[in-house]
């Protein structure tokens, strides 16, 4: 009863520790992060807390970000590559409220980027931290559901089963049919799940200048790739790893060698392909690049779109 009195009388729930988590919890998470950095690709168990957002919606990434963020940090949050998808908006608002930090949508300006399912197109640089939200951290999970067994397989470096899966893909389809969450080997030792990013993004992890941290809240695991670490996608010598290729450039900015989202324009098969990384696309447009559908009218429509959506 007193708790409610506290909440209502003093507005206690309206005030939080900096970045929501208490300092003890942050220390615990930082220790897990440090251990993860020391053993690249190894999944460190940590005492994940309940967060005021559902498990599976980025609680791992949020806890990692909360543990490392400081008042001088500039935070960017993306979901599917975009800064303004609802969950990205929600998480960014969470930190703006609980940590009061500056937020940005510009990749280059951010010191911490929390992401779900994408790595920004622009190469990250020294000093930046990329925080991944991870649903299932265990790359062997769908081959072996038992945690006790998968931990043993990692410890003994028994990864034959992983290639059995790739073998089956090729035997059945003629090529490896894994398109996202494509397993990688980190620094020649641990096989790691890169979170459900498309395999298009895997090469960006290799020897990245940025620190890459992975948080899985529900599964209570943290792992890391320190800067300049070797990250190799699993493959066969005669069926080498390759990324997706798109037949056309971005319809808005004309960008090539970028990951594109397919947008359905009508119910008669009309499609357009546009950058999944919205910041990258906007930068290119601002620099004067134009794709085939990027008339000025489209950019007018963009603002209207906001209002239309907001009024629903």
């Amino acid at each position, binding site marked *: 009863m007193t708790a409610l009195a506290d909440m209502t009388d003093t507005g206690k729930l309206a005030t939080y520790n900096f970045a929501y988590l208490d300092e003890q919890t942050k220390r615990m998470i930082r220790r897990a992060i440090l251990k993860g950095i020391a053993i690249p690709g190894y999944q460190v168990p940590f005492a994940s807390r309940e967060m005021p957002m559902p498990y599976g919606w980025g609680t791992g990434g949020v806890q990692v970000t909360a543990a490392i963020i400081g008042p001088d940090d500039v935070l960017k949050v993306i979901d599917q590559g975009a800064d303004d998808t609802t969950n990205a908006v929600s998480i960014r608002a969470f930190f703006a409220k609980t940590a009061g930090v500056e937020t940005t949508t510009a990749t280059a300006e951010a010191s911490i980027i929390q992401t779900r399912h994408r790595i920004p197109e622009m190469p990250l640089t020294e000093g930046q931290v990329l925080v991944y939200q991870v649903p299932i951290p265990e790359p062997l999970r769908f081959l072996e559901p038992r945690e006790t067994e998968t931990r043993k397989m990692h410890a003994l470096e028994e990864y034959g089963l992983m290639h*059995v899966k790739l073998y089956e893909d090729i035997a059945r389809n003629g090529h490896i049919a894994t398109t996202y969450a494509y397993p990688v080997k980190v620094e020649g030792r641990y096989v790691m799940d890169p979170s459900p990013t498309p395999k298009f993004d895997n090469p960006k992890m290799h020897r990245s200048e940025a620190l890459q941290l992975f948080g899985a809240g529900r599964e209570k695991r943290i792992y890391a790739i320190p800067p300049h670490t070797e990250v190799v996608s699993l493959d066969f010598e005669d069926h080498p790893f390759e990324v997706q290729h798109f037949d056309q450039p971005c319809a808005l900015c004309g960008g090539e060698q970028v990951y594109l989202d397919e947008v359905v324009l009508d119910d008669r098969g009309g499609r357009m392909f546009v950058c999944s990384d919205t910041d990258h696309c906007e930068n290119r447009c601002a620099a004067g690049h134009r794709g085939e559908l990027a008339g000025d009218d489209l950019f007018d429509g963009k603002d209207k779109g906001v209002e239309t959506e907001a009024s629903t």
Partner: protein
Amino acid sequence: MSTAELMETVQPGVDDQAEAALLKVEGLTRVYGDRIGCADVSFSVWPGEVLAIVGESGSGKTTLLNCISSRLTPTCGTVHYRSGDGVSSDIFKMSEANRRRLMRTDWGFVHQNPIDGLRMTVSAGANVGERLMAVGDRHYGNIRQTAIEWLGRVEIDADRIDDQPRAFSGGMRQRLQIARNLVTGPRLVFMDEPTGGLDVSVQARLLDLLRGLVSDLGLAVIVVTHDLAVARLLSDRMIVMKQGRVIEAGLTDRLLDDPRAPYTQLLVSSILQV
């Protein structure tokens, strides 16, 4: 008969004396509470030799097989394995990593029920290729070629390579399990009633195949069976077990022609009548 005496009779011919034993079992005992699984078992197996462990069900032969293949920890006793580099070590003092590596490279294990030894939901090719990939083979074409060759050696048509073992008959599954074990060229294979669940005609064909493979590859095999016919066809030497203890051991021909222990005489007479 004491263990020392048994060891005497188990020694193979003079020619092989010079070579060190591949597997050396000493004083192996496994108890379950008050009940004895197997007690004070000692023997050695030399490279290229087939040893049959025979006895009726409940005689402790499967417990013994599980202990010497490190699948079960014995209550006391040691099992030394001499690896390819000539170093002999106690398998229960090895790290788990080394032991598991041994099990997927130097050793094979053929289960009575192929379901226990196969991945039923991946293709025959992947079943055969798994051990190759586990030891670092990373060339799909080569793995597949090797798998096709091995399917041929166990008389499975190459066009079944992408089928799952679920679609195979019992005899085919057992042959697939054998191929899966032999693909990495193991030095020692454990077999637990390999013909157990099969029809008589299928058994005969499988035994024939096994005998050919064992002699072609120069494999050392320890085969557990209740069937003296299997022991006669496959093995060079035999151990007869009763109530967890070894009661007679010796060359298979000698033992079947001239069984000494009354229990062995009973076993032999019963099988010869069939």
